[in-house]
């Protein structure tokens, strides 16, 4: 994929806007274990990009490489127009990183953490104090500012972490699983924070294992599986990749399940959950025919749910890890 690396609009190949992150042929392996096996990414400036994948897919490795923490084995990598291999320091000046594990200094207070960042961004004393006060206020940490960061809750630590990332006013922000381990309220707060960042023109590169999160936040989503990009596109494009929904029948009696499974040969079996999936688009007509057919076959399920395709389906279809035992479904 030809990519415009320098923000010079004239030289654009195709219709692509200048890239905040441009990755061609990224490879990384540890010993004989290949973590990233030739990845291409093009992330336009000012957009939100989500790298989605199961645990161990290589998401964190990709972030570590693009944020200059570790080196790639191969690949033409540019962040903010700077070559990662030749000018990592320029890349560092353009980015902010909030890793998966809290990058705050637990031994000092939240405010001291912020002032430390201000010093390292070479702000003046006055500026540093001002930015610190503003960000602590914005992230609702003013009250806890004088307490050691180690006493903060998980959500507060994440907020402090992001506040510290923002001290230098980075144009490109990497967020590695920003909501992992947060309770639902903190997660929604974090989403609000990320949306707010985007309105100020910042490019956000986030990784997540939550499809809902990618769907909520991202302009474009890439599904990473086994070190390769399995699919890339908008949430809508990805959803179109897989065929329609299904009706799911759940049984509590294994005998009933087995006889139903024998009768419904076209259904997909999930022996562990004692459930069957019958392809269906969820329309009234199709649903009726499914019900009629169940009646005539004498099958009585304990639960019947209609499932319309969402990113979960795309994800499991692409990553080939089968349906999970618990998916969100609409009962109609």
């Amino acid at each position: 994929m030809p990519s415009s690396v320098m923000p010079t609009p004239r030289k654009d190949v195709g219709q692509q806007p200048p890239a905040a992150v441009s990755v061609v042929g990224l490879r990384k392996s540890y010993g004989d274990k290949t973590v990233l096996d030739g990845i291409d990414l093009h992330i336009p400036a000012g957009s939100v990009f989500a790298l989605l994948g199961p645990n161990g897919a290589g998401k964190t490795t990709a972030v570590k490489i693009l944020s200059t923490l570790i080196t790639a084995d191969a690949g033409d990598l540019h962040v903010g127009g700077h070559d990662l291999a030749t000018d990592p320091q320029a890349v560092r000046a353009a980015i902010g990183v909030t890793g998966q594990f809290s990058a705050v200094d637990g031994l000092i207070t939240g405010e001291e953490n912020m002032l430390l960042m201000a010093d390292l961004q070479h702000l003046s004393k006055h500026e540093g104090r001002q930015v610190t006060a503003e960000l602590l206020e914005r992230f609702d940490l003013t009250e806890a500012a004088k307490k050691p960061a180690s006493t903060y809750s998980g959500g507060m630590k994440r907020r402090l972490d992001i506040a510290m990332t923002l001290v230098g006013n980075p144009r490109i922000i990497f967020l590695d699983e920003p909501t992992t381990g947060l309770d639902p309220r903190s997660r929604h707060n974090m989403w609000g924070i990320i949306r707010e960042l985007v309105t100020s023109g910042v490019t956000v590169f986030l990784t997540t294992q939550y499809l809902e999160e990618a769907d909520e936040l991202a302009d474009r989503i890439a599904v990473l599986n086994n070190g390769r990009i399995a699919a890339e596109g908008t949430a809508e494009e990805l959803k179109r990749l897989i065929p329609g929904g299904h009706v799911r029948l759940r049984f509590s009696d294994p005998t009933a399940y087995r006889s139903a499974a024998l009768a419904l040969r076209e259904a997909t079996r999930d022996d562990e959950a004692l459930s069957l999936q019958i392809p269906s688009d969820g329309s009234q007509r199709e649903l009726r025919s499914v019900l009629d057919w169940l009646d005539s076959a004498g099958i009585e399920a304990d639960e019947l749910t209609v499932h319309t395709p969402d990113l979960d389906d795309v994800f499991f279809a692409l990553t080939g890890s089968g349906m999970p035992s618990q998916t969100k479904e609409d009962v109609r």
Partner: protein
Amino acid sequence: MSSLSLAVRDSSTMLRRNLLHARRYPSLTLNLLLTPIMLLLLFVYIFGDVMSAGIGGGGADRSEYIAYIVPGLLLMTIGSTTIGTAVSVSNDMSEGIIARFRTMAIHRSSVITGRVVGSVLQSIASVVLVGAVGVAIGFRSTDATALEWLAAFGLLTLFALALTWIAVGMGMVSPNAEAASNNAMPLIFLPLISSTFVPVDAMPGWFQPIAEYQPFTPAIETLRGLLLGTEIGNNGWIALAWCVALSALGYYWSKAVYNRDPK
């Protein structure tokens, strides 16, 4: 900003961070001081009469034995303080904050430089505290000239620098605080088998090389000479060589480990 002023600025920021840690959590530093102070009191007040009988041909009294062991204990204090350095470096490296520093446009070595300077300052403060205990129980160095005092201070600083660099390296290769504390054991163990408590001549013959060919003994003999006017001989140069060699070794070791990709 020029690269030198960037280095100075970022290193002093990192130094401030480390001093803030030390000030906020003084118990770690103070705990490490307990070992040399306990040993000082133990050897002077409990074993003192027996020990002093073995010094200077048997005619020494307790105050002479105090004078004999204080220099070694000052150097042991440095060893003990730098164990704390190894532990906190290892703690630090396992924290996300170091990963953050690595992704920031700061002078790359400032993390280590700030740590080393902070640790040397901590060592010197510890030496002053243990020295004060020594003076309180009767240690005197009144015959030494100002120049000798200065040289003694220089030796202590250089020794602290050398052990700190080694401790930083040990901390960096240790996966956790327990491992760091174990790996740094030689820093407190070596002074025990040096000429801190008894002269090397008084040790069994097979053991004398072990006591002699290690950094503490020549440094102790040099410090004794500077503070008490005993014979230094070539110990001064040997001590200096040890300091330079250990500093260089620790420096390149730490740098190499720090510049490796983190796991």
